[in-house]
């Protein structure tokens, strides 16, 4: 029974979420409101970015400033694949299904490529203390942009345009759900415990036999892969991938989201990603002051409430969600632990 319940717990959000998303998608298509669809897609992508960055910056206590760089890797990989496969169709399937299959392939490739970039950046810098990671990732983000701007095959500064519209609410919603479920499942796993141990005290964790570098690199790679997913999704929503979309300003936005929500809180990341995205949309005319406000917000938060709004608390820590599940869980854990 226990494995089945475990499995169900991972898939339950999707069982609930997919019908909701499908109906939302249908409603959007029915009303034909492009602007709202794009806004919702942006919200979803920001949730993916915030929750995935939180795996490194919140759960592990390292500090990455290169999320936009990994987004760029993902976006360009996926864009290249969809552009390359634009003329092909799987003849035994309806055209729409075939397109979606290719898009799924592109998303998977985007995650793989971004994850690979994560290994290359993370392996040298994560052997040392966290501050190096901040500068190395900031540098990486700038370098990846200058590489793209110099590569003819990636369209240089004008980028890749003419992508087909593939991202819809279902893809974004499922990806956001997957990111949240991933972060949640990670935090209750052995890997997650190791990450928390590293965050609390790296030296002590190492003394307890935690392979700190290995766990840090793995967390970093997971986070980079999901950033690549977010980049691929946004590129296929606005049908364009340019280096200007992935400047370090984008990374800072995500950092502000997770710091505001609370480093280490998945709920906080989701809430502040949604609130900040919608809030910015409402305050469009003050665009020029946006980054100044973000920077000031970071400083003031650190001085007054460094743990952010939610600290490390989660929605599912509330007693309401614990009534039966928690007790059963404890019993299940005891049984699992007792088994030989």
């Amino acid at each position, binding site marked *: 029974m226990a494995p089945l319940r475990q499995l169900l717990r991972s898939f339950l959000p999707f069982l609930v979420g997919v019908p909701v998303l499908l109906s939302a998608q249908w409603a959007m298509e029915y009303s034909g409101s492009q602007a709202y669809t794009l806004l919702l897609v942006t919200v979803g992508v920001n949730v993916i970015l915030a929750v995935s960055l939180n795996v490194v910056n919140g759960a592990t*206590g390292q*500090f990455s*400033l290169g999320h936009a760089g990994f987004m760029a890797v993902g976006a360009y990989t996926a864009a290249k694949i969809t552009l390359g496969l634009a003329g092909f169709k799987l003849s035994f399937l309806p055209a729409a299904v075939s397109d979606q299959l290719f898009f799924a392939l592109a998303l998977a490739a985007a995650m793989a490529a971004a994850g690979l970039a994560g290994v290359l950046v993370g392996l*040298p*810098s994560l*052997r*040392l203390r*966290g*501050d*190096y990671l*901040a*500068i*190395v990732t*900031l*540098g*990486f983000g*700038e*370098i990846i942009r*200058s*590489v793209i701007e*110099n590569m003819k095959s990636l369209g240089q500064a004008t980028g890749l345009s003419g992508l087909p519209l593939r991202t819809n609410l279902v893809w974004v919603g499922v990806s956001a759900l997957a990111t949240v479920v991933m972060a949640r499942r990670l935090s209750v796993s052995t890997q997650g415990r190791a990450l928390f141990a590293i965050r609390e005290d790296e*030296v*002590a964790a190492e003394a307890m036999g935690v392979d700190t570098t290995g766990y840090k690199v793995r967390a970093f790679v997971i986070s980079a892969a999901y950033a690549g997913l977010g980049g691929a999704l946004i590129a296929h929503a606005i049908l364009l991938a340019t280096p200007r979309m992935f400047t*370090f300003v984008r990374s*800072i936005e995500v*950092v502000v989201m997770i*710091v505001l929500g609370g*480093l280490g809180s998945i709920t906080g990341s989701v809430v502040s990603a949604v609130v900040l995205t919608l809030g910015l949309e409402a305050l469009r005319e003050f665009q*020029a*002051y946006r*980054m*100044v406000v*973000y*920077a*000031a*917000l*970071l*400083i003031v938060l*650190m*001085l007054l409430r*460094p743990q952010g709004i939610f600290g490390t608390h989660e929605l599912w820590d509330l007693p309401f969600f614990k009534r039966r599940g928690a007790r059963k869980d404890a019993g299940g854990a005891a049984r699992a632990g007792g088994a030989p």
Partner: protein
Amino acid sequence: MTEFLQHLVNGLSVGTIYALVALGYTMVYGVLKLINFAHGDVYMVGAFAGYYLSELVGVRPPWADPPPGAGEVFVKATIVTMGAMIICGLLGYVIERFAYRPLRHRARLTALITAIGVSFLLEFGFQLSPLVHTPIEFPPGPSPRVFPALLERVGYEWAGVSLSNYDIIGLLVALGLMLGLQFIVYRTRFGTAMRAVSFDSEVAGLMGIPVNRIISWTFILGSALAAAAAVISAVSRPRIEPLFGLMAGLKAFVAAVLGGIGSVPGAMVGGLVLGLAEEYVAGYTDSSYRDAIAFTVLILVLLIRPAGLFGRFTVEKV
């Protein structure tokens, strides 16, 4: 051979700039164990301070009629450089006093995030459209500005190698500042106190060293050096904009890590080595990836010798 010497000249002139900025990173890291993220932006502020000061003192370009005399050029260039150093020193003090000091005993991540916040506040604050118009336009706004010519450029040609008085004066000023710093750090009471704080700030405090004041002065010194570097570099490369401190700061950080972060001679050597490496690699290969070179150097240093050239690898004790 000519090409080799030409790259040597260019590399040294870039390398001294990196070295001066790297000194600020390394000194602050020495006393606080904090990577001062905002240091690259202090460098940027230094360039703008020089720009505004030269507007205020009315620097006349060498092609003006009548051309400024040698005495006037010297006085005004000195005022601009010293003024920029003082302004940045004050800025460094303010940043330390109000952003870093309240957080000194909190988690390391908190200080790092604050430093990032300060850095972006400077970068994007300077990009706002001007609010003050007289006597100067401040903030300068996002479009690049041209740093005024403080003195006339005189080019020399020697065995095919071209260099200018900018390179020579810049190199001499930078070397003078580095020697001065070397003297301060190793030959004065303040320097001794600074090294004591860097060794163990708590025990230094118990021995009667005013730790707060030493840390403030470390920030002031580092920021003033960055301002001097900014003025020297802006004279020969006059395009300045609010974001140009970002790359310079990153590269200077690489120089500091290369030399061994926390080590004063290391930062000087690291800066020169990085400048030369960049110039030679970019000169002999495709120079469009120039910015990627410093980054490659950083990754190599972190992989092969994380403590840097002059640093000693220390085991973290609890």
